[in-house]
Structures are given as structure tokens and as C-alpha cells.
């Protein structure tokens, strides 16, 4: 059973001129479906290739089950590979595509037949065994690529944008099938993508990379609920950011923030008393954590406890029904804009130009030190 560990791994190209991966350490537990996620050029593919043995680290170690695998070539690492363009052999039948790798490794015929049948059945294309890959559109090719990867009996799947060639609709259906398959077979999976929605939908754990470094790793839930940086907050979900400064420090590890240019005053948590008076800060809260109320909402007779909710008044600029959700585009008096997302079935009676009361729970407000370049932190590349 595999446990993959990288210790202080650095990778440079062009005789040290290009730093692709910058001193990273990580651990992938047996049976985890792990994503390497980040914008183009962040080092995620290079990291994947080092795990697979397709690249050697310039510095640092790759361990599998505690053993340094420097001397072990990719084909002996018990890994199956799936790439964006599938790399299917079009001149071989579906069956031959799957058995080819097994034959190359010199397995017995009986074993090869058993493995190929099992793999093709698992992905649901056994009936096409004698056909050529040209009968398939992209989803079928994708399944064939997966069958080929799992037929070897590999315990780890190495995937680089495996859903990248599928139509968005197909990929949204297929991603769940892919996860279920990996979990049902008890495989460990390492999956590279730049698509955060896909990572959130499939991953047990996500490793977020930028500029060759790891910014944060953890479960989708942990990263989503507690992002450690503006970049991660912005990258993993739709987030509102407002700039301000610390106006007052309060008891119980709370503080009062004043949003810039005469915006609202908001009370939020100051965990570990990280922030001091007059610190410039950025607050972040998710679109879906913005509650909307009519101006005359009767809080006194409400069933819910609104005591830790921060309220302020905004103008509704426009709203939009997009199926699963409804989006409300809002503007503060100081001109700052932000957005609220509600379920598509949310019933409301708001019109553009209306004043609306907005509420955000103190627990849903994340505070970050104002960066020197907010635009850079918010850029997704």
C-alpha cells in the first residue's frame, strides 16, 4: 500500500535558470484522492512527474512507503498514468490497448486476460473490446485510458488534466464516476488540474500551489472554510473582498473594522489577537454567506439567533437567475461592490435599485493583512 512523501524537493530546469518547484514537502496517504491544484506554471505538473519518476528532483527526496525511489523507474513504481490527450493507440483494438502494457511487462496470458476483462468491465466498455478506439468519442477514450491504467494492477493513479478533453457537461458527470471508481477500487490517486471546481468536486485532499511553492493543503472543507491567504480564498470559491482598517479592539478577541471610504463598521474575530489598532486589512466572505433581508425584516420575532450577525445596508444593482443559484449584485454606499449567492429556489421580492439589509455572520468573515499588491493576490495566475 502506497504512501507517497516528498521531502524538501526542488526542481530546476535549464541549468538552474528556471525554478519550477521550490523546496516543497508533502505527504499523500494511502487511499487518498489528492489534487495538485494551481494556475498555469505553478509547478503542479512537475511535482506530479517527480512522483511518477518521469523527472528527478534537483534536490530533495521522493519516498514511497518510506523508501527512497530515486533508482526506481516509472514502470516499476506501481502507477497507472492518465493524461489529457489519452495517448491511445488508434491502430490497436480496445482490447489490445489494454493488454499491450501487460504484455510488455511479461505477465502470464491468463493473468492478462483476467486483468483486461476486469478493467474494461469496471469502466463499462467491455462490449467494445474488439472495436478500434475510433468508435469512441472523448468520453469513451477517457474510459479506455482509465481501463488501461488500472489493468496493470497499479495501486496509484497518476493523472494530468484527465478530464481536460471532455465537454464541460460531460466532465461534470464523469468527474463523479471517476471519483467513485477510484474509491471503490481502493486506489490512491494524484490528479493535476487548474480547475478548482473540479478539484473541490472530487478531492479528498487538495494541495494548492503557486510559483513553485505549496500555499496550503488539506481537505476541500478545511481549505474552503479556513483559507490561509487571500489567494487561496479567492482561488477556491467565489469570495467578496473589502478593504478597511482596525478601528477598535474589543473584548473576547473581537475587533471592529471600518471599511474604507466611509463604508460600514463591522465586528469580526481577531483570532490570536493577530491584528492591532489601525492595521490595514482585507476582509473576505463567501458569496453564499451573505444573507439578504428586506429593510423592514422583523428580527424580534424571528426563530433564528442573529446575535453574531453583522448587518449593513446596500443597494441592489441587479440580480440574475442561473439555475442552481441566484446571484445578487450589491453596492455599498462607498461604491464597493460585492455579491450574494442564494439557491435558485430562494424566494424574494427585491428589485434593482432597492435598499437591502445584508447580514454576514462573524464566523464567516476572514481577515487578512492588507497585501502590498492586492491585485496580484487576486489575480488567478
Amino acid at each position: 500500500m502506497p504512501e507517497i512523501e516528498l521531502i524538501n524537493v526542488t526542481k530546476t530546469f535549464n541549468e538552474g535558470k528556471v525554478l519550477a518547484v521550490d523546496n516543497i514537502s508533502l505527504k499523500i496517504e494511502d487511499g487518498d484522492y489528492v489534487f495538485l491544484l494551481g494556475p498555469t506554471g505553478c509547478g503542479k505538473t512537475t511535482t506530479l512527474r517527480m512522483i511518477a519518476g518521469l523527472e528527478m528532483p534537483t534536490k530533495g527526496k521522493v519516498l514511497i512507503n518510506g523508501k527512497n525511489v530515486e533508482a526506481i523507474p516509472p514502470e516499476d513504481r506501481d502507477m497507472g498514468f492518465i493524461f489529457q490527450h489519452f495517448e491511445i493507440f488508434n491502430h490497436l483494438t480496445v482490447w489490445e490497448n489494454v493488454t499491450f502494457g501487460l504484455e510488455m511487462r511479461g505477465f502470464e496470458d491468463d493473468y492478462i486476460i483476467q486483468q483486461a476483462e476486469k478493467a474494461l468491465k469496471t469502466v463499462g466498455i467491455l462490449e467494445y473490446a474488439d472495436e478500434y478506439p475510433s468508435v469512441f468519442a472523448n468520453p469513451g477514450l477517457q474510459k479506455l485510458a482509465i481501463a488501461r491504467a488500472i489493468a496493470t494492477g497499479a495501486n496509484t493513479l497518476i493523472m494530468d488534466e484527465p478530464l481536460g478533453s471532455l465537454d464541460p457537461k460531460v466532465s461534470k458527470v464523469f468527474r463523479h464516476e471517476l471519483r467513485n471508481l477510484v474509491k471503490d477500487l481502493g486506489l490512491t490517486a494524484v490528479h493535476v488540474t487548474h480547475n478548482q471546481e473540479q478539484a473541490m468536486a472530487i478531492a479528498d485532499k487538495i494541495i494548492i500551489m503557486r510559483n513553485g511553492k505549496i500555499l496550503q493543503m488539506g481537505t476541500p472543507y478545511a481549505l474552503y472554510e479556513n483559507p490561509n491567504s487571500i489567494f487561496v480564498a479567492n482561488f477556491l470559491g467565489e469570495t467578496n473582498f473589502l478593504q478597511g482598517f482596525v478601528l477598535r479592539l474589543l473584548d473576547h478577541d473581537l475587533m471592529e473594522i471600518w471599511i474604507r471610504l466611509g463604508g460600514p463598521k463591522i465586528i469580526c474575530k481577531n483570532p490570536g489577537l493577530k491584528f492591532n489598532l489601525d492595521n490595514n486589512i482585507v476582509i473576505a466572505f463567501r458569496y453564499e454567506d451573505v444573507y439578504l433581508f428586506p429593510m423592514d425584516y422583523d428580527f424580534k420575532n424571528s426563530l433564528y439567533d442573529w446575535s453574531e450577525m453583522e448587518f449593513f445596508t446596500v443597494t441592489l444593482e441587479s440580480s440574475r437567475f442561473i439555475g442552481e443559484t441566484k446571484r445578487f449584485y450589491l453596492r455599498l454606499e462607498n461604491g464597493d461592490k460585492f455579491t450574494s449567492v442564494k439557491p435558485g429556489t430562494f424566494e424574494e421580492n427585491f428589485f434593482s435599485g432597492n435598499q437591502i439589509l445584508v447580514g454576514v455572520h462573524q464566523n464567516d468573515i476572514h481577515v487578512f493583512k492588507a497585501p502590498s499588491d492586492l491585485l496580484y493576490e487576486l489575480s488567478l495566475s
Partner: protein
Amino acid sequence: MVEIELKNITKTYGKTPVLKDISFVIKDEEYFIILGPTGAGKTTLLKIMAGLEHPDSGKVLFDGKDVTAKSPGERNLGFMFENYALFPHMNLVENVAYSSRVHARNKEMTNALVNQVLMMTLLTGRDNAFPEELSGGMKQRVALCRALMNLEQTKLLILDEPLKALDAGLRMNLRQELLLMAKSKELDLTVIHVTNEEQEAMMVADRIAVMNQGEIIQIGSPHEIYYHPKELFVANFLSEINYFEGICIKNETPLWDIHQKSEQKDKFYAEIHEHSSPLLLDIGFNNQFAAYVKNDFNDQIHHGDKILLVVRANHMKIRLGNRLSRKSNSFIGKILRRKFMGVFYRFEVIIRVKSKEKKIIITIPATTEIHNRFLEDSEVTVYFPKELGIVFKYPGEQIIQDILKLE
């Protein structure tokens, strides 16, 4: 003002029909989306409107005038196609400003416009980069900027997958910008935008034309096609769905009749909306009946007809325990898998009745309660309000398989 009318457009490549008798009108100042999977014929249709392709038969009218034989230049429009066609020898700003040369704009105005579109697409500060130095996403944005530069001359913007190569986050931002720009009062634009992403379509469109295999399946507002899809293809394309095969037991059942039936069987009770008459369905679970609002398209469903009931994953609700609801259609099951996806949790719930088993997909807003209490293996009741059920005449096994497998 630009109103576009297509009349009986057909197009065949070799022996393959790409467009089959397409007719519709795009209204002045409308943001019109053509949505469909790869190979549906979307881009061909767009090229015919732009004058880059000619139909085998049929007419293209702009403001009532026949432009079928006119070249793209004579049609006065801004367009952006998937292969961005940037000039490799010009830097970013020169590429973007190129149309100003053609239109002999003064320098100040050009600069102001260039700055505006670069800011909007987050390209500011890359002025001197040449196309080969730019990533795919950046090239796409440059191409978009170039199309946007034309807008004071033309009132028609044609966009083929304008946001395709971009990262998800950037795509979300740009969608909103595109819409704001298209709707700005100064520009009075008509926009035709092709995409294969349903979220993108829903987010910007006034109306959406859903295409498949060379045909327009349905045209309507996002709300219409979402709540009243005309066919299974449309229903499925817009979100993850659950479907049930069954039989229509009764059409236009009066209120008292349902009461009576449900009392009798002690299984199911349906509240009825004022303005709708329900269908009563047997979908084979526990002899439960389900009643649904009729939509515009299922008039033709009669007593005894085989039907397909569709319920969107996000219209299913879930609660702990195993009490069947008397107010809505409900099933008892067990959570097989759950996955946190950010805004939503996605559940796969197995419902079993005797030997019959079915997997139901549910997506619901993520809350602390869901996170803490709705765990795998929990026994749950799954239900949905009857007005959110969509009923189609049974389209046949093969069609269902083709649509749901998307191949």
C-alpha cells in the same frame, strides 16, 4: 439597431447535415446565447450569421434586409472566433488598437478605449508583450479586447466561446463584465455568444437557444428553459438530474380525487397549486403516487401513457430519519456517498423498495448541520415539491441512454 432573422437555414458538409432547417429571430439589444455540446452546429451557425460561411439554403436578414450574399465586412459587426487570429508581429496594444487604424480614430480616443478594455480583461501592464509570449488565456483576452474595440461602429458582437481557455475564476469575473458591457446604455449592443457551458449561458443570456445535432431544440429565457425544458436533452444539459420511468395514472385530477386516493392508500398526499392541474404518476416505488404541475409541453400526456419524470438534483431535499412526507413526494433511503463541493454538498442516496433499487443525486447548500449530521450510511428521507417535477412523454430507452451518456 440590429435585429437578426434566420430563415430555414440548412448546411451540409459532404454528406453530413450540420444545420437542419433553422429559423429564429434575435431581437435588437438582446444578449443571445447559443448553447450545446461540441458538434451541435453552433459555430457553423455563427459563421453563417457573420458571413464567414454560406448556407446551402435559407436566408439571413439584418434589420429586415437580406444579407445572405454579403461578406463579413459589409455586415458591420465585431467578432471573435476560437482561433484568436492575433497578428504575431504586433505587440498586445498594437493588436488591440488595430481596428482604430481601420476606423481612423484619433489617438486620444484610441488610448482611452484600449485602456478601458485592457483593464476590464485584466491585461493592464502587458502592453509590449507579443502574442508568442502570452498564455492561451491571455491571447483569448486580447482577441476579446479587439472585438470590443469595434463597438462604437458596430452594434452587433459575435463571440465564439470567448471565455473557453480561461481559468474558472477569471471566467466567472469576465462573464459578469461581458454582461455589464453588453447592457450598457451607451453601446446598445446585440450580442450573439456561443458556448458549451450551461453556467455561462445562464449567467449572461437574455435568451438561450439550446442546440443539438444541427437542430434548435428550444429557445427561451434561462428561467423558461430551466423550469420548462421541452425535452430531456435540455433538462439534462442544464444541471445534474434524476429520472424515473413510470405511468401516468391520471391527468387533470381534481383536488378531491387525489385526497381520496392518497387517503385510501395512505401513501401520498398532494397539495395543488391554484393555477395548475397535476398529473398523477406511478413510478413504481411502494406504489407511491406523485403529482406534478403540468408544463406547457406535456399537454399531450394522457392516462395510461408511459412517462419520464425528471427532478433536478438541486430540487431534491433531504432530511434525517425515515418518515415519508405527506406533503410532497418522498422516498426513504441511505446515504451512499457524500461530497463537499464548496457552495453545495452532493449526496448519492440509495433508495430500496423490495428488489428495486435506485440511486438519487441531491445537491444542497452546505451548512454546518449538513456537515455534522448528514453522514454516509445515515438513514434519510428524500423528497421534492411536486411543482419542481418535470414530466416528459417516455422518449424510449435508446434516446434516454444516448442523452444521459452524452455520447
